[in-house]
């Protein structure tokens, strides 16, 4: 029990620590392998020949209850793995029509071999010697080479064909994926089998009777008829290890994770995930995804079709038996049919107050909010592994004894189906700050919804207490607050624009007169001094470290009036809008404090900036591909993202005021 808790604690740490704690390369994974989803072992491609070098060897795996079990498996003989033990064997991905060569070196102390069930083309063997089911490699260093033309696309097992009742149970199995010629984002040569290639998963099921493995390890005796499985694995791991990343350093010999992670299908996310399920075990497993149905499209590498072969005979399931030796391919969509959200589509009844709920072990995957993409408040002391309101569903064998680790549950043949919010994790601002301008009306909550409420900012104004001559180049103002503390900026007095080139941050400014096509003029004492820009930023919080692929969406407009509730249209010479994000690595919080602070980075095109934004809402989304670490604050600003909106209007010859109306702002990111 203590081991399990410790492991769960590590899961928490990994979720929190993200990529920083998880090496992106581990033994038995190619460099740069993704943390989630199927990882192909590359092999070597030469022309149309795809060669893999496998080594049958001995190693051990770790189980969540603290046990170690001796396994036999196939390792990748190529660098950088160079025979490093892994369970199960490498995922071999080939393309239909390729000649597949699998060279096997046998480091076991008895003969072994590889069968390729479902490959209907002839499997030619060279070297080795004829065995009962196929050609075998001799014990202790023997070799055999298998070659076949990759046949129909689909998911297949490969496994030992020697003393199978023992050797397959000992772990000599792996997955073979044949991709169609149509493309790697199709499961089969059928348009209906297109999937999102970033969401391709293999779930290889197996069982382990540690008594047999112990007997093999110690040279003891064991009656194969007494097989009584105690561990039930997906990709060589038992829950909760199954939800660890690919290549987790905690599981050096079990490189493949089994977390299935998807997003709801939307107009912009139309492709389903592909889940390839393979049962290398000897038992039939009733597999049960909670939540939505999954669509079974193929079995044993063959599309399920009507008798004429003209249409699909796929079926939808929330429980399906994966039989021994069988492979089934599923397209998994998530359709959020109700689209409940707490703001404008809440549940018709109030949800329970989760602070009154007891969470087992004080540990949960729950966000505290029943709404997808939203987090709530959990009881004090409860630790959540939730990142941004995503949902987790069990995806597991429904056989009670199989959802255990040596009879202790939950464990065994289970993993989680993680449903991220549409587009990824999202956040709306929790604070605003005006660094150039004054609040006209509204508050941060107006920015949280795409609706009819606006966060409205006017350019900063002050007064000049004394009269101004047409030639005067030093002027004194009543207050500098809200004007830029550095850099050249423009102000307007009556119909003249001046450029402030010195004395920024003080009340005595050095100015250039008659700028932007206006003429220098005299101004009476008490004249209003107005900025020609609005600058404000919104702050987001609780963005996790390790977030990636940040996107910023801003929707807003500008109006000609600075007072009143309506929006007076701007006819021409539209205000120019530039949206920037804080790069915390430049100068920390100080780098993103004022208008001219060095940390503000203009969001990269598309769309190009500045943008002309008039009195109709303009929605723009900028993407920052890759890790978002520079844009997420650390230390005292941990989890903060800041987005600045700068809007300026240089109007000549007769400058007029304007106001900036922010309707909606959000960030979306891939959570770690």
């Amino acid at each position, binding site marked *: 029990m203590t081991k399990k808790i410790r492991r769960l604690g590590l899961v928490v740490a990994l979720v929190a620590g993200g990529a920083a704690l998880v090496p992106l390369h581990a033994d038995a994974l190619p460099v740069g392998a993704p943390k989630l989803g199927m990882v192909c072992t590359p092999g070597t491609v030469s022309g149309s020949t795809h060669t893999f070098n496998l080594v049958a060897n001995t190693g051990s795996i770790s189980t969540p209850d603290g046990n170690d079990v001796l396994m036999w498996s196939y390792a990748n003989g190529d660098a950088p793995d160079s025979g490093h033990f892994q369970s199960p064997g490498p995922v071999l991905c080939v393309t239909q029509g390729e000649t597949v060569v699998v060279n096997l070196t046998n480091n076991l102390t*008895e*003969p072994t071999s590889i069968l390729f069930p479902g490959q209907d083309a*002839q499997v030619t063997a060279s070297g080795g010697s004829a065995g009962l089911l*196929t050609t075998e490699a001799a014990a202790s260093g023997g070799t055999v080479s298998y070659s076949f033309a990759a046949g129909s696309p689909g998911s297949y097992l490969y496994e030992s064909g020697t003393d199978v*009742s023992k050797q397959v149970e000992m772990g000599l199995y792996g997955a073979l994926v044949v991709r169609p010629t149509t493309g790697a984002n199709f499961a089969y040569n059928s348009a209906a089998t297109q999937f999102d290639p970033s969401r391709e998963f293999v779930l290889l099921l197996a069982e382990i009777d540690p008594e047999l493995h112990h*007997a093999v390890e110690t040279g003891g*005796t064991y009656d194969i*008829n007494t097989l009584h499985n105690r561990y039930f694995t997906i990709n060589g791991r038992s829950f909760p290890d199954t939800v660890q990343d690919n290549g987790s350093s905690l599981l050096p010999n079990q490189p493949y994770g089994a977390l299935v992670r998807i997003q709801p299908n939307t107009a912009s996310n139309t492709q389903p995930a592909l889940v390839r399920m393979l049962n290398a075990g000897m038992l039939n497993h009733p597999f049960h995804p909670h939540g939505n149905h999954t669509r079974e499209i193929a079995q044993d590498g063959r599309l399920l079709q009507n*008798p004429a072969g003209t249409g699909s005979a796929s079926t939808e399931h929330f429980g399906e*038996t994966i039989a021994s030796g069988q492979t089934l391919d599923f397209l998994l969509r998530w359709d959020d049919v109700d689209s409940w959200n707490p703001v404008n589509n809440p549940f018709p009844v109030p949800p329970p107050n989760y602070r009154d709920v007891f969470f087992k072990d004080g540990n949960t995957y729950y966000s505290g909010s029943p709404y997808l993409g939203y987090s709530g408040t959990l009881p004090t002391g409860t630790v959540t592994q939730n990142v941004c309101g995503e949902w987790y569903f069990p995806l597991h064998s429904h056989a009670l004894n199989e959802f255990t680790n040596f009879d202790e549950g939950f464990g065994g043949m289970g993993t989680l189906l993680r449903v991220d919010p549409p587009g990824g994790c999202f956040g709306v601002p929790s604070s605003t700050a005006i660094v150039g301008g004054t609040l006209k009306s509204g508050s941060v909550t107006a920015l949280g919804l795409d609706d009819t409420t606006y966060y409205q900012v006017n350019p900063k104004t002050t007064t000049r207490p004394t009269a101004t001559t047409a030639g005067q180049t030093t002027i004194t103002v009543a207050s500098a607050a809200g004007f830029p503390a550095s850099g050249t900026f423009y102000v307007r007095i009556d119909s003249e624009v001046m450029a402030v080139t010195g004395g920024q941050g003080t009340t005595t400014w050095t100015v250039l007169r008659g700028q932007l096509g206006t003429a220098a003029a005299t101004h009476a004492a008490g004249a209003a001094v107005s900025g020609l820009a609005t600058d404000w930023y919104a702050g987001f919080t609780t963005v996790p470290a390790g977030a990636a692929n940040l996107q910023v969406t801003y929707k807003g407009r500008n109006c000609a009036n600075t007072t009143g509730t309506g929006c007076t249209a701007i006819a021409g010479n539209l205000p120019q809008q530039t949206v920037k994000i804080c790069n915390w690595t430049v100068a920390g919080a100080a780098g993103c404090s004022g208008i001219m602070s060095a940390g503000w980075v203009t969001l990269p095109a598309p769309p190009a900036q500045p943008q002309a934004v008039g009195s109709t809402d303009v929605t723009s989304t900028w993407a920052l591909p890759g890790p978002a670490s520079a844009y997420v604050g650390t230390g005292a600003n941990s989890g903060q993202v800041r987005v600045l909106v700068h809007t300026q209007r240089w109007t000549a010859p007769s400058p007029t005021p304007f106001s900036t109306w922010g309707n909606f702002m959000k960030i979306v990111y891939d959570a770690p």
Partner: protein
Amino acid sequence: MSGRERNGSLAMRALAFNKTRALLVVAVAAAGLAVTGSTASAAPVTIDLCASTGQVTMPDGATVDVWGFVQTGSCAPGLVNDGNFPGTPLSVNEGDAVTVNVTNALSTGHTLRFEVPGIAFDPGPTDAASGATVTRTFTASAPGTYQYQSGGDAGRQAAMGLSGALIVRPLTANQAYDTATTAYDVEATLILGAIDPNFNAAPDTFELHGYRAIYWLINGKAYPTPGITAAPGQRVLLRYVNAGFDNTAMLLLGMHQRVLARDARLLGNPFDASAETIPAGGTEDAIATVPATAPPSPNGFPLYNRQMHVTTGNAPTPTTPNPAYTPGGQLTFIHS
């Protein structure tokens, strides 16, 4: 039985049973691929079965007490042997009016109940007490593969071996059903069974929670057996009858098997399988076409229990390479 010597040898066993029928019909059934275009015709058919006792020999030399259905002129205990276990496949034609006379040669107290799941019998007595005969009649209205069995002693009689295959042939020869997509060249009936000798030694008293089979049989035999003879390009009809107690996955290497029917009913959407699981008590019909290329093994294309019940008897020494207990069990080959 020798599959190497006779095409369709498993179907040939249908010849052995004691029934009255136009000889032409029997010849069609026996000759298999050699006859095309002939049609069967409905007729009255009478089958005499004897539920008897006996012994069979396992490949490891053990002798096991079994019960079984045999066809004989005079029914008596002790008639079951390696040559007639399990019960002979019965073959009738679609539309036949079938009469089955079952005589019970089991010992006193073992009342026999003759059943064929999926077949509706005409009204009448169902049971035969020890020493008695029960007559059951039905019309073979739907082609397919069925399992006949005794439902006596709450399943213990079937577990002792009182079961077998019943094949209802469609009107068109060399088809499994009345559709051309079920045409075949070679027919093989595979009765999947298992034996726990401890149960067989004490069928009346054995505590069933302790049932643990150690013999895994196809048509009453563990590997090695002669296998299924079929030439490249021939379509092999595999009639699976699961007379055992586990859902059984049968893996065929080198070719997919097109699963056409389950429990004597055509599937709306046949599918291709490598490893197909046949539920205990169920039947399935699949057709596999033998490829022209060489098989993965000199023995042919392996067809075996993917749950790896390819061992015979107690298997005590897993660390010994190629131990005596393997290969055995539910393993056979399709070969030319």
